[in-house]
């Protein structure tokens, strides 16, 4: 991609990101309940103290000014104070973020390693048993409510069979001093394979629950793009060259068929963000998603505001990334 084209897309991001922050700001500005009252809670304070607090928080300024202050601070990573934790919001979020990222990545890997082989099999053996299985999974993927599927998995594997833990990221016995804050990596870095397995057993069910809808979508994309690619002249030409079936399928067909899969995967990684809230709630996963849900009930609005903005920005950037990835992967799109 030329630099001009790239710059054009980057410029396109600006109004979207600005619009997103306006909406997040309005969302919270219109939220009923006075933040000062919420902060004060049951403490008795004088009206002077109250208006001083209001001034400190900048709540006495006009709306537009407050918006620019909000955006200005947000760009510097300052989202104010978490009422509940009495600590900066950014600090609280940073603490919870690794758990969420780890879960999302494992779910992404799960989705990729299941969807691509099945999608390819469904395409090259059209109308076979694999194709049927693929159809059923893709229907279930869009029809299963994630929270219920998670509970079913818990009832089966944690309660009935009792082979996997019910909640959390790792057992007490396996807790280790963090390095990267990704437990699957830290346990290995600390040379604790037992703790690694423990962390793995905790993440399996949440990752499957989170990844299933993505599996369904990626499988459908892979199947249909593989079917399309197999019809292409270059596949026939590759066969006419007398290449092995494996080479025709994997080197010639799959390489092209995966271009849409990869870029849809990048887009769908954004959708995992929403799923995180549900899955983290079901599996007691100590990540950002659950923190947001809890914060809503605690009326901890600065945190909710920051998290929604963070999610939205990540989502926009992932879409942007998917767009770029598609162009980079596809040599046909002129550089």
């Amino acid at each position: 991609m030329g630099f001009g084209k790239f710059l054009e897309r980057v410029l396109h991001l600006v109004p979207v990101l600005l619009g997103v922050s306006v909406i997040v700001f309005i969302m919270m500005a219109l939220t009923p309940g006075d933040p000062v009252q919420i902060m004060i809670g049951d403490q008795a304070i004088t009206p002077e103290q109250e208006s001083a607090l209001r001034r400190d928080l900048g709540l006495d300024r006009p709306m537009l000014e407050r918006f620019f202050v909000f955006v200005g601070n947000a760009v510097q990573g300052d989202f104010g104070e978490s009422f509940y934790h009495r600590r900066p919001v950014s600090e609280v979020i940073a603490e919870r973020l690794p758990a969420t990222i780890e879960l999302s990545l494992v779910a992404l890997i799960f989705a990729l390693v299941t969807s691509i082989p099945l999608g390819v099999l469904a395409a090259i053996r059209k109308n076979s048993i694999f194709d049927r299985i693929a159809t059923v999974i893709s229907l279930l993927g869009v029809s299963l409510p994630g929270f219920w599927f998670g509970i079913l998995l818990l009832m089966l594997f944690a309660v009935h069979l009792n082979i996997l833990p019910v909640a959390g990221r790792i057992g007490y016995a396996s807790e280790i001093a963090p390095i990267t804050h990704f437990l699957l990596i830290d346990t290995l870095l600390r040379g604790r394979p037992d703790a690694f397995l423990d962390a793995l057993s905790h993440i399996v069910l949440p990752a499957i629950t989170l990844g299933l809808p993505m599996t369904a979508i990626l499988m459908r994309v892979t199947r249909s793009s593989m079917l399309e690619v197999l019809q292409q002249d270059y596949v026939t030409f590759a066969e006419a060259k007398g290449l092995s079936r494996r080479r025709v399928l994997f080197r010639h067909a799959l390489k092209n068929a995966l271009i849409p899969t990869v870029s849809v995967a990048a887009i769908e990684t954004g959708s995992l963000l929403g799923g995180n809230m549900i899955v983290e709630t079901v599996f007691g996963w100590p990540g950002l998603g659950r923190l947001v849900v809890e914060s809503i009930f605690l009326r901890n609005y600065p945190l909710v505001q920051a998290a929604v903005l963070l999610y939205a920005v990540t989502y926009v950037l992932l879409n942007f990334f998917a767009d770029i990835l598609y162009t980079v992967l596809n040599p046909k799109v002129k550089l």
Partner: protein
Amino acid sequence: MTNVAEISRPPETIFQQNLRNFMGNRLAVASTAVVFLFILLAIFAPLIAPHDPNTTDLFRRLQPPAWVEGGEWSYLLGCDQLGRDILSRIIYGARISIFIGAAVILVATTIGIIAGLSAGYLRGWVDVVISRLVDILLGFPYLIFAIGLMAMMGPGLINIILALAYKEWVIPCRVVRGETLATREQEYVEAARALGASRKHIMIKEILPNILSPVVVVSTIRMAHVIILEASLSFLGLGVQPPTASWGSMVSDGRAFILESWWVSTFPGLAILLLVLAINVAGQGLRDAFDPRFHE
């Protein structure tokens, strides 16, 4: 003269042809029947439900389904932690799911058609404003946007509908805009323009009827998605408030009892799956039959 009847039968319209295609898809027809069954359940809930959905009975607390030891046939699917009949609550819960699903789709499709037609036909600044807004709304993951709005507006039936419709209209809007862009250059539209028809007339009488079927198909399939979103909000406690029965909150209720009382979560979730699956299959059948681009 045996073939008089054959000759005098009027030729099939495209709609009839598509309908016949659809009726040939047995799975889709069966799914449509399931959807209608749920709609009937919702409408006639007071007549069908064996018990009042909100009557608590502490003696029946976590009573198992009829076929399990300790169950009884008048409480077919067992009772929840407050001794309420799960079957009756599922039947009443259908009202919430279907009402919210239908209302969101109705509102969103109406807005989406108006916005999409205007953007696609009028172009210019209208298109710029609408497309920008669509871009921005697409910048939010759906559930997170809805959660943010629910946090702001507080729980309640109308608020859920609004929270979901605020973003949902983007989808029919994009479909309509794309179709309108493709249609506005067609000869019959050009002809109407040449004859001096007003823009409103062209948009409503010439373009709209021709782009309606993809919109209907998309909206049908989206309804499945909206029902899951509503259930997810209810599951998180941001949906319809207790004691009103909704499937999502029923699954959430059962979460505390999965160790011994599996039925509390299982059956309401099954109801969601069944309805959503039926809508999806029926919607795909509609798409295959009515949207020419999907004909193989």
